[in-house]
């Protein structure tokens, strides 16, 4: 549309990078400066994103980062920015939620001695996340993919002196790397097969048809990246631990944006999975559904407020991945439900985390919900915003979550009824554990001394809560889905019925899905009310008996992986080390040098010092020479 204004996209990307670099180089020890730089940068990015969004700018702009033409298909790595509906929407989400959280951090991190480092990390994250959003080719995507990974690493380990935080950051990074391994292989394979990494060109070439096994393999490998980043089973273990980071970080990175990057990426490169005959979508759908269920089950028995939210995030990410998989199962479909849910989820999950942060701050870093209670009166703003977000998460109309979740359920109904059942079960569990949290922490009686001194957080923290409440509640009426459909199917998504029409549309469109989801959610609330409204201790372990333990212990995944790593990688490493020490370094190298020295020591015994020995040996040598040379 506006060719020149596509360059504006750089203005989204560069301020956070500048802020990160500037803080690192100049303002690491100046909290106020660093905060201003960082917040200014994200606000600037938000402003530009808003302009891009409202102007409807589309197109691409690129800067060649690396380019080698070896005759075998040029290897071009461009930092290419692509502006379209998908990226513009995501830009808004990232910069919008990001801005709010940046400002919130100002209050939350007040008084910490490393604020500069914090904001540097946050800005670096913003930059790389925006890079993922804008990327128009796989290599740039991968670069930013790695960079969000590392900023997540730095921020989880922000309080590096706490062993738990340090371990969690390491775990997060390594687990992500496992996914990235597959991702990178997928990218290389794509390049080797099609000679390009550009999304648009790849879409064309894949569309032209390939060998049958290639899309499945590539699709699965690419999906590995999403499994890592979006914490899907079996690489989901890092996300709950990542809650060791500061709460705003959890809100921004581990709830709203970065973990959603996996889903965004799947939508962005949907053409890879949409190739006919690919087996990838089934796997994706089942992995997503499985993760959703698994995480929801675990969340039921968690007691740490942030961990509950973390498992909830996992579960919702599972939903989105499920949606992508479902979309890919039939030809010509589009992953709009996944993106839709991503958008609304970003708002209400960020809100939930910020609310949790507010509680944690008020309780002086108490995170156990069984030591809270009665907070609704003491922290009204926090409570009401939290409740709104919870309702959105549970999918109660007319909150935003209802619409996006319903879109997924409808899709499941269309494609794979078994998965619909699974999704509905997750919806039930979701509202159950969320209202368990609400009742135990906010409504029920105080369970310790901690809540007695709780006071509402300052405005710098509550204002962001209020700001985020707006989209959490009403985003369902903004026509996000039709805006997105416009991306995948230009010209199809323009019809926008009125408010009421939008509210009832799900029930017309796929009544079974809509009603079952709604009923499940309500049932969950009722169950939670019955079980938890007045308890000071969790009754569930008593009720479920032995079944509750695996839930509480997260199905023993950490233990299992610990063993697995100990058995495989550590054994390998120990073996390699032993071989290095004893076989190569010892037997071969030392053996060679030792045996040579031994030869020397033996040989020089000939030097007896007696001249007659020498003469004799000489004569012997002479005789040998004569016999050898003349054959006598």
């Amino acid at each position, binding site marked *: 549309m506006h060719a020149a204004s596509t360059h504006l996209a750089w203005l989204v990307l560069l301020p956070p990078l500048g802020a990160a670099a500037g803080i690192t180089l100049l303002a*690491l020890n100046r909290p106020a400066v660093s905060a201003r730089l960082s917040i200014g940068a994200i606000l600037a990015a938000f402003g530009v994103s808003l302009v891009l969004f409202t102007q409807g700018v589309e197109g691409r702009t690129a800067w060649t980062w690396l380019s080698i033409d*070896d005759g075998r298909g040029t290897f071009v790595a461009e930092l290419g920015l692509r502006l379209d509906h998908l990226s513009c929407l995501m830009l808004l989400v990232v910069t919008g939620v990001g801005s709010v959280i940046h400002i919130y951090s100002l209050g939350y991190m007040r008084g910490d001695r490393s604020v500069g480092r914090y904001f540097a990390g946050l800005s670096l994250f913003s930059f790389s996340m925006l890079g993922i959003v804008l990327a128009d080719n796989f290599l740039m995507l991968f670069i930013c993919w*790695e*960079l969000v990974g590392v900023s997540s690493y730095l921020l989880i380990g922000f309080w590096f*002196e706490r062993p738990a935080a340090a371990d969690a950051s390491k775990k997060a990074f390594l687990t992500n790397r496992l996914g990235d391994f597959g991702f990178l292989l997928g990218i290389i394979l794509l390049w*080797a097969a099609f000679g390009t990494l550009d999304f648009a060109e790849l879409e064309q070439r894949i569309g032209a*048809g390939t060998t049958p096994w*290639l899309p499945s393999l590539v699709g699965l490998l690419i999906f590995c990246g999403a499994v890592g980043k979006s914490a899907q089973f079996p690489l989901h273990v890092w996300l709950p631990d990542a809650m060791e980071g500061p709460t705003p970080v959890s809100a921004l990175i581990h709830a709203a944006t970065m973990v959603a990057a996996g889903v965004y990426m799947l939508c962005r490169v949907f053409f890879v999975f949409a190739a006919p005959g690919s087996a990838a979508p089934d796997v994706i759908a089942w992995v997503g559904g499985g993760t959703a269920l698994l995480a929801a089950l675990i969340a039921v028995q968690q007691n740490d407020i942030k961990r509950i939210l973390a498992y909830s995030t996992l579960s919702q990410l599972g939903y989105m991945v499920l949606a992508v998989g479902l979309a890919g199962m039939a030809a010509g479909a589009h992953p709009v439900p996944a993106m839709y849910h991503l958008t609304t989820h970003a708002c209400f999950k960020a809100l939930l985390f910020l609310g949790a942060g507010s509680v944690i701050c008020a309780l002086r870093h108490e995170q156990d919900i069984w030591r809270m209670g009665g907070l609704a009166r003491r922290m009204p703003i926090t409570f009401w915003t939290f409740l709104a977000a919870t309702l959105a998460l549970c999918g109660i109309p007319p909150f935003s979550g209802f619409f996006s979740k319903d879109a997924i359920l409808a899709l499941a109904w269309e494609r794979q009824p078994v998965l619909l059942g699974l999704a509905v079960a997750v919806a039930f569990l979701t509202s159950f554990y969320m209202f368990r949290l609400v009742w135990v922490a906010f409504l029920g009686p105080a369970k310790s001394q901690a809540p007695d001194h709780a006071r509402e957080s300052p405005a710098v923290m509550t204002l962001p809560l209020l700001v985020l409440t707006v989209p959490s509640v009403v985003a369902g009426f903004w026509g996000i889905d039709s805006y997105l459909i416009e991306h995948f199917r230009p010209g199809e998504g323009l019809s926008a019925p009125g408010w009421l029409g939008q509210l009832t549309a799900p029930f017309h469109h796929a009544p079974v899905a809509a009603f079952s989801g709604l009923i499940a959610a309500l049932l969950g609330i009722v169950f939670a009310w019955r079980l938890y409204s007045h308890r000071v201790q969790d009754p569930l372990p008593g009720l479920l008996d032995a079944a509750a333990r695996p839930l509480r212990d997260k199905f023993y995944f950490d233990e299992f992986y610990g063993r697995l790593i100990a058995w495989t990688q550590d054994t390998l490493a120990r073996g*390699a080390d032993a071989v290095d020490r004893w076989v190569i*370094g010892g037997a071969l190298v030392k053996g060679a040098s030792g045996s040579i020295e031994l030869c020397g020591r033996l040989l020089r015994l000939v030097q007896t010092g007696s001249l007659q020995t020498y003469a004799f040996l000489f004569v012997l040598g002479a005789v040998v020479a004569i016999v050898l040379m003349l054959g006598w």
Partner: protein
Amino acid sequence: MDSLTFIIFCPLIGAVLIALIPRSFEVLFRGITLGATGLSLAGALWIFSEFELGTARIQYEELVPWVYSLGINYHLGVDGLNVGLLLMGALVAFAATCVSSEIRERQKEFYLLLLLMTGGILGAFASLDLFFFYFFHELALVPTFIMIGVWGRGANRREAAFTITLYLSLGALIALVGLVALYLETGAHTFDVVAMTRHVAAHPVSESAQNIIFPLLMIGFGILVSLWPFHTWAPLGYGAAPTATAMLHAGVIKKFGLYGLLRIAVPLLPEGAQRWVGLLAVLCLGNLVYCGLVAMRQKNFGLLIANSSVAHMGFAFLGIASLSLIGVTGAVVVMIAHGLLAALTFGLGGYLHQRLGTLEMAQMGGLLRRLPFVGGVLIMAMLAGCGLPGFANFPGEILVLFGAFIRHPVIVSLAAWAGLIIGAVYALRAVRVMLHGELPQRRHDTPDAANAWRKLPYALLLAALVVFGCFPRLLTDRIVASAQQAIASVQGSSVAEIQHADDRLFGGSEPTKASIGQRGAFYAGQEGIAAGRSRRQSGCSIRLTGNAAHE
């Protein structure tokens, strides 16, 4: 004096100066060394920036006949392959001088040897004559030995010094035999690489000779680069070496073997290369995976980074083994990036050793609180080491992986595993154990790098890593044309092989075949141009058409 001679002789003249100045003027030694390496660095920077892009021509050429009867010339020059290496070498040398303020005794000898090493390795990179190439490299051998013995650390430094010296001499001598055999086999009666290359283009070395000389060079140079299983000298030696020596050796001198493979072995022995790179690729896994695993088990930070530096060499080998333009370019980038990175990590290791008196990781913890600068740089170095974008290693490793995939898909997969996961495991473990966690009581007074002068070497190296990482075209634009020339002779025969590999990978479906067919046609065109040049290559194009007929 011409610019390259200037770069090489600055350190050597500095060394002579130091030798002549009496011991009592202790202040001067460091100053002279800083000045000499600084001048070299300035010269290298100048050449790097003035370097004309897009051509494989030798620039800044200097040629002085040296030994007529053997055809040895004092022949210097830069092209894309070595211009970056030269800059990297000068930079590392300067940084190594900066960190050497830890040396308190026998400064005269120390700086003299340091300058000797520097001059030698810069000379080796700038030389275009086999003899001088080898000659300059060997200048570093004795200084390394003495430095480890006198200023080294650890109880086993004696064993380390002898092991490294013997191992490196073995490698160098095997390579020397290869080089002499090459000289004799080409029949060009010259050691001048440029003249030899020209001669070989017209009269290729017989295939049987290539098949013998290439492995000689591969093993010989491989030992110098710590190719698995000839790598054990490296951790041992670097663990015991003083900081500056380890920086120069692991960073710069080690790249000599790789450079030799690229400059000499591959272009002059294309058929030998074709035949042997398979083995090279397998061995490089030994570096990447095996040494990575070994690094995971290390409890001493010095040994950890030493093993990791060995492991990283695998990428460079893999790039060379790809025999593709992308892979070879990547290998050169990896060489430069790893040089900077190794120097940085060894420099930081030296700093920690100086401050803490030990590098046992169990005795550290939480140091980031006390050492925000050094710790921060160390974290970045470790992240750079596991291939994080933004640092120069990333573009190099990516290029290598992409470039090598068609020829060695399985090996690339394993290499990616090693680079992404094993590398991250030990790097992050080191950060976790040393910098994160609680600070032990007795470490409460550990000082950070106090002033700008102390920070300079680390900042310089890190900045170079970041600049090349963010703007890799600074390197690749210089490298590509020369890399193309280096593998031009191989590519003729490799077209058919790649075609074959392509079919193996994607064979079957029509469209893919069609696209490859197009590429094949492209090659055929290239082939046509080159066909007249030599019989060997036309033989290849026959193979190519045969392949097509088979399909």
